[in-house]
């Protein structure tokens, strides 16, 4: 049973560029959440996707957008990259039951913006 997978593992971009990160949820899961973890900090919620729609969003600008595909995989897009976007981006999947369910995290994508 494959867990949550993310690609790429590492990425280097320059300011102003755009980046796309990818996530495949754990088998059987239909909900994907994205988190940003800056160095020395805990993860911060970016947004959550369910049934191919953004269901909830944290305090992040519109430069951060996402998508969920029919197979439940998801992408995180960040436009006009800033130095402050350098972080570990974590994807978490869960099963939507209407109630709080355990999220399972992937290994993350480390983004460095120069």
């Amino acid at each position, binding site marked *: 049973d494959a867990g*949550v997978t*993310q690609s790429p593992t590492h990425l280097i971009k320059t300011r102003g560029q755009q980046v796309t990160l990818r996530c495949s949820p754990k088998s059987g899961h239909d*909900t994907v*959440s994205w*988190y940003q973890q800056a160095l*020395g*900090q*805990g*993860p*911060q*919620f970016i947004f*959550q996707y369910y049934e191919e729609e953004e*269901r*909830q969003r944290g305090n992040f600008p519109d430069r951060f957008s996402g998508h969920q595909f029919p197979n439940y995989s998801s992408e995180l897009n960040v436009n006009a990259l800033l130095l402050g976007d350098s972080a570990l981006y*974590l994807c*978490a999947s*869960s099963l*939507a039951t*209407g*109630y*709080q*369910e*355990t*999220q*399972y*995290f*992937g*290994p*993350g994508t480390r983004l460095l913006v120069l």
Partner: protein
Amino acid sequence: AQSVTQPDIHITVSEGASLELRCNYSYGATPYLFWYVQSPGQGLQLLLKYFSGDTLVQGIKGFEAEFKRSQSSFNLRKPSVHWSDAAEYFCAVGGPYNNNDMRFGAGTRLTVKP
């Protein structure tokens, strides 16, 4: 708004010694509480969770946590630490319905002395 405070940024214990990591939360309703562990360069692994019922929760790798509503705390404990427990530990709080409002603490880094 919900929040999590982990008062200890860094803790050092000797191998074989007991461990307690502190977590205080703020949440307006019944909290759903989690402890995750993150090894260097890795994603988050769930250690244990509290949704309801018995306030003493057992997790993986010999960890346990106790929910104390009167103190708004959910401290993580282990009776005997192993060198492989060295990692970053995160406490998180969420609500009873779906995962969209999960908040993480800033983490406690555990160093284990031989």
